[in-house]
């Protein structure tokens, strides 16, 4: 028996002010699945993530999200200066369970600490969020989504700007979370990482392909996804993609 479907989209179109930014999106995301979301900047990755969070209603088509969704965004510059500890940030995941006049208390902070321990940051709970490394900040935001008791995690470029060891340990953590039955959608520019995921979804204002990476990631799909900026790496079978504003080395 296949694991349950946590997200199901059929011919979904979503966008802003009635104008679709993405259309024709049909896929299913199952418990325990890691799905890489590929596409150029402006290709609609953020629009899809916002639709999954319920912030943009479908313009046409159907979207069913059957478990709690949490977002793990990229760190913004302004957040580096924000006067909060890692524990404060993780505890923000408890807000939706509290009435509007209450702040996270002892019980919520205990569950935030447990979540930080789960992502390997129990000993950094008291540190200022902005003084942690990029990989540690991603882990704190993942801990926040665990406090939210989310079964679906939406990660926006989680590996962007990370060095190799941080990137590898974050990928290991993502694998563990999938092993616990969570579903993860990971927006990424990294084709090699996408190949290691369970499935891929290629978006360029419409869905180009969806499915297991070995079937979906053909040269034709990649060229349609990135608009022909594919380069063959000399002396290897690998292909590299050079989307606009590419940050990886």
């Amino acid at each position, binding site marked *: 028996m296949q694991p349950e479907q946590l997200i199901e989209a059929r011919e979904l179109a979503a966008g802003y002010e009635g104008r679709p930014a993405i259309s024709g999106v049909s896929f299913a995301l199952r418990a325990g699945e890691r799905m890489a979301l590929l596409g150029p900047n402006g290709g609609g990755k953020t629009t899809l993530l916002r639709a999954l969070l319920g*912030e943009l209603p479908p313009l046409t088509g159907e979207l069913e999200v059957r478990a709690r969704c949490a977002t793990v965004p*990229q760190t913004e510059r302004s957040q*580096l200066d924000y006067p909060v500890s890692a524990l404060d940030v993780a505890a*923000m995941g408890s*807000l939706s369970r509290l009435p509007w006049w209450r702040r*996270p208390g002892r019980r919520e902070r205990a569950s935030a600490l447990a979540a930080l321990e789960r992502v390997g940051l129990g000993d950094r709970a008291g540190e200022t969020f902005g003084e942690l490394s*990029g990989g540690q900040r991603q882990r704190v935001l993942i801990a*926040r989504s665990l406090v939210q008791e989310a079964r679906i995690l939406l990660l926006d470029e989680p590996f962007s*700007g990370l060095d190799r060891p941080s990137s590898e340990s974050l990928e290991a953590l993502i694998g563990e979370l999938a092993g616990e039955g969570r579903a993860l959608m990971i927006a990424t520019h990294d084709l090699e990482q996408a190949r290691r995921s369970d499935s891929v979804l290629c978006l360029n204002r419409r869905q180009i392909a969806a499915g297991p990476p070995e079937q979906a990631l053909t040269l034709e799909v990649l060229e349609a996804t990135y608009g022909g900026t594919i380069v063959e790496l000399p002396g290897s079978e690998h292909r590299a993609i050079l989307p606009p504003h590419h940050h990886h080395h």
Partner: protein
Amino acid sequence: MLEPLQDEFMRRAIAEMTLIAVAGGALGCWVVLYRLSYAAESLAHSIFPGLVLAAIAGAPLLLGGAPAVVVAALAIALATRVPGVSREAAVGVVVTTLFGLGVLLALSPDSPPGIQQVLFGDILGPSDGDLAAAAALAILVTATLLALHGRLLAAGFDRGAARSLGAAPAATETALLVLLGLAIVVAVQGLGNLLVVAVFVGPAAVARQLSDRIGPMIPIAVATAILAGVAGLYLSYYAGTAGGASVALAIVVAYLLSLPAAHIRGLPRGENRAPAEATIS
């Protein structure tokens, strides 16, 4: 030290200043974190015509300021919707228009001699009504900020994720702006239209230098505002300087004193941050 306290007017001035300091210091921490300092100054200057009309009519400033802050907020909200005009420019146009209108009214032949008080405040002469308004403000601000603390912290940290966290960012920000508008309207009686923003920005900036957690920042900002306020009143008492200006000066001195303290703590600040952090995309 105790001599000024013998005077009834000084006791009333200290009471008014302390109540304004509680509201200004606590609210100011969120004003600074939400980068609303310019908005605070804009709101303060935009209510000038309302204050002048109240002064001309001989009514309490609160009666002129309260409708004026609503008009100013609506004008700013409308102006920022004009396509092709940046938010800052739109706010700048509204503020100078309203402030200019206030100056026109203030310099008309009908204007009473007390117009100076509107500009520079009258911290040394609060009426019973002023004291009651300041007390109500201090209670309202404290209670609201305590209740909304968790949501304010989350929405200010991560506006994009705030909705999915249940932090209701739009409602939370609106509550903050409404509180700020109310606080400016009440505090302007004491500190004046030109200087009132000092109590919302200065003490919070001091607290930010001294702490990198919001928890301690708020009491530090309130304590700074009270101490600087009382110090300013004493300066005014002994040196005969203008009350509101002396308080603003004391707040600036507190800020200058806090700068080396932050340096000693070695807090990374803004552009001085380690280069590794600059690679975030």
